[in-house]
């Protein structure tokens, strides 16, 4: 059966649909390159880390000091668990800085009482402007724990205040509801030890904690979520981290370090002027700026993704919360790409300018537009007879089928790499979520991301309402 050519207008429709098909073919082929690069990176990483003695960093007197920055806003339900988890991280030289960002609940009093915190003479400098700091407290029980009480200024401002007060050579930005695995910092600090000043940031893997067993601030058993939304997000995170970010290590470096768990050189952040306030994409903006500034001064400015260190986070299990989150992420992406547009196709920025930035602009940002239009045109075309069903099937095979295989490849990478999940049941659940992801969930994310683009064009800077639930022994989520 051959294509139908009913007239000039319909011919145009066919050619346009062909263009969309070519777009998805190119995009998925690039993803395939990324997956192959990720496989190579994983193989190299596994070889380097075979039987690695953890005590090299763990037992070192000269390991770089790390300051954990945990901004907190109305976190009374979970702040104690979060801080306990941070204090028990297995790292030789660690400072924990909790920044209370003008909470209206009992976050500060809960912390002060639980950890016996008292005002302290802390010598610090406001290298980066932030909202006024009202007080600094140190724990009598844990001298490496500081609490910075400040006026509300949102997350970026809280992180900037934390950078000012921190005394570590490296700072680790966290979300308040993130649980970091105990050896994660040892692993995440290695690129800085090996790469010296050439490395400005490093990020680890974020995993979904929903339905996992948590005891004393640690995930004791990882499980695949049974809730569909959480399950689909788990698949997305696996794809994004193990396939996306790992692959980018070989292809010009990463442009994003997750705001939930990232390690940075403090001096580089100060030189860059800190996190930018007026964006909801402050983590990506900072990484772009750090790399940009490093390259402009003749340095490498490497941002590395390390697959093994893991931080766990709750993901939303309600459509409304998830929608707001994805809307916000896409607005942040659009904002940063526009703000840093000088990097696009600029050879001075090497791989970042010639590969990374174009990818994020024409794929990550524009993909929901292309997907929505492609889908709409396919449906219209089939309905009006301009396209026959075979062509529509071809579109789905290229746009979704190819992507499905790549996602399965990411799951296989997880299986052969780290095997976090035990048991056949969990593996079968993952496979089910991978197969079902494209039947409605993916289309929803397209809608939310389109809404994000629309919101960005209208100038929206809203974070949206967040809900926090404390960690119980069998966590169910509605984080955002």
């Amino acid at each position: 059966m051959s294509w139908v050519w009913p007239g000039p207008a319909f011919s145009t429709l066919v050619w346009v649909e062909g263009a969309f098909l070519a777009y998805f073919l190119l995009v998925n082929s690039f993803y395939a390159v990324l997956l192959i690069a990720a496989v190579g990176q994983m193989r190299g990483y596994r070889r380097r880390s075979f039987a690695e003695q953890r005590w090299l960093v763990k037992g070192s007197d000269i390991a770089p000091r790390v300051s954990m920055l945990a901004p907190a806003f109305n976190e009374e339900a979970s702040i104690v668990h979060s801080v306990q988890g941070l204090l028990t991280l297995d790292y030789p030289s660690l400072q924990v800085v909790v920044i209370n960002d003008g909470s209206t609940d009992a976050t500060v009093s809960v912390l002060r009482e639980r950890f016996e915190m008292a005002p302290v003479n802390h010598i610090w400098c406001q290298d980066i402007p932030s909202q006024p700091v009202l007080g600094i407290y140190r724990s009598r029980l844990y001298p490496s724990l500081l609490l910075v009480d400040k006026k509300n200024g949102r997350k970026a401002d809280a992180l900037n205040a934390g950078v000012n007060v921190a005394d570590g050579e490296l700072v680790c930005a966290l979300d308040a509801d993130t649980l970091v695995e105990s050896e994660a910092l040892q692993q995440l600090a290695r690129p800085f030890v090996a790469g010296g000043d050439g490395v400005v940031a490093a990020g680890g893997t974020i995993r979904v904690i929903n339905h996992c067993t948590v005891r004393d601030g640690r995930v004791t058993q990882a499980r695949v979520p049974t809730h569909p939304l959480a399950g689909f997000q788990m698949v997305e995170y696996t794809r994004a981290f193990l396939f996306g970010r790992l692959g980018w290590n070989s292809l010009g470096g990463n442009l994003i370090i997750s705001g939930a768990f990232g390690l940075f050189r403090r001096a580089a952040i100060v030189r860059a002027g800190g996190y930018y306030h007026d964006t909801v994409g402050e983590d990506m903006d900072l990484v772009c700026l750090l790399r940009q500034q490093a390259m402009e001064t003749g340095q490498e400015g490497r941002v590395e993704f390390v697959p093994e260190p893991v931080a766990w986070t709750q993901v939303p299990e309600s459509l409304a919360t998830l929608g707001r989150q994805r809307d916000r992420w896409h607005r942040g992406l659009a904002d940063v790409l526009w703000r840093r547009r000088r990097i696009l196709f600029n050879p001075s920025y090497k791989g970042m300018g010639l590969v990374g930035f174009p990818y994020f602009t024409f794929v990550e940002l524009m993909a929901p537009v292309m997907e929505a239009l492609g889908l709409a045109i396919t449906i219209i075309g089939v309905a009006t007879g301009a396209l026959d069903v075979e062509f529509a099937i071809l579109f789905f095979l290229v746009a979704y089928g190819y992507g499905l295989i790549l996602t399965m490849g990411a799951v296989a990478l997880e299986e052969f790499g780290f095997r976090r999940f035990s048991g056949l049941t969990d593996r079968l659940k993952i496979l089910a979520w991978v197969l079902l992801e494209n039947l409605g969930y993916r289309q929803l994310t397209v809608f939310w991301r389109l809404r994000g683009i629309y919101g960005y064009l209208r100038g929206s800077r809203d974070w949206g309402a967040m809900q926090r639930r404390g960690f119980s022994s069998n966590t169910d989520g509605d984080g955002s």
Partner: protein
Amino acid sequence: MDLGSLLVGIAVVELAALLITVGFVLAHVVWLKLDSARFHTPRVRAREALNMMLASDGSSEWARRRLEALPWRHVVGIVLDVTRSLSLPERQRIARTAAPEEMAAQAERMCASRRWHIRLKGARVLTALGVGEANVPTLFNDPHPVVRAQAAEWASYRSDPEIVSRLVDMLGDVSGQCRFAAQNALLAVGTPAVGPLVRFLSSPRPAGVADAMEVAAYIADSRFLPSMILHSKSSDARVRAEAAWALGAVGGKEAAARLERLLDDPSAVVRGAASGALGAMGHWPSVAAIGRLLDDPVWEARSGAARALQALGDPGAVVLRRAIRSGTATQGDIARQALGVHVDAVELEAAT
């Protein structure tokens, strides 16, 4: 080719790729299950036998038999896990008495492989066993930095002069990971590293001096003093700063005198390090000199001075209080921070 055939072709390829990937994942899971079922109990018993041997000087022959009943990959896993927190003599004891004889021999052969990751595996197994004197030292010159770094790790706690010299030379390695591993190994070696380090620091070489100074600061042996004073005059600010900290660790009149001269260094980082070192030494006669840095235009120097005065107790507090009462605004600000004289939060809000 018509569209229909193309569709069928694509669908077949995609389905095949999907089934192969899913098949691999499920096959891997099944293999793991079977492997675990088959070897779980023998592994537990082998681990118990090793632990009992270590804890009570029990029979090593029993532990060896348990280990020899397992595939190599499981033996390596158990031995590496058990030896993780053991001292060098205990690891060597396991190598002599309990580990399968072939284990060390195979690891030594791996050190001669053409593939870096095989050499790395061999070196790590030999490190865990505490043996390999014939093979691992050759890896100090390995082309791959991870392998060289592993050779440095292996050398930790070994005081053989030749090995220590190789570690000291590695402080000038191009790889940061190698330098870090060499530093940690030298810190583990301790006093036997002083002689080679002094020779390293006395000879003219630009690379590795700062890292060597950092090690010297931790070992803090007085034999380092001439080198520290020499390098405190280096043209590299990082070297001068590390020398300052090292002088503070060693202490003494000569060190204090040199540190006071460094309070006027052109680099703020060095000035801050010098005052910090004097504070760490508890050298209270320097309070006045340190106090002058409270007015330094650069934060690193000011904060270093303030922390040093905090560390110096009452003499430092006197200088800080004077700075609040009659010093400049800059001096007063940092002195208030150091003494905890807080500006009222409401006033601060109103001011901003």
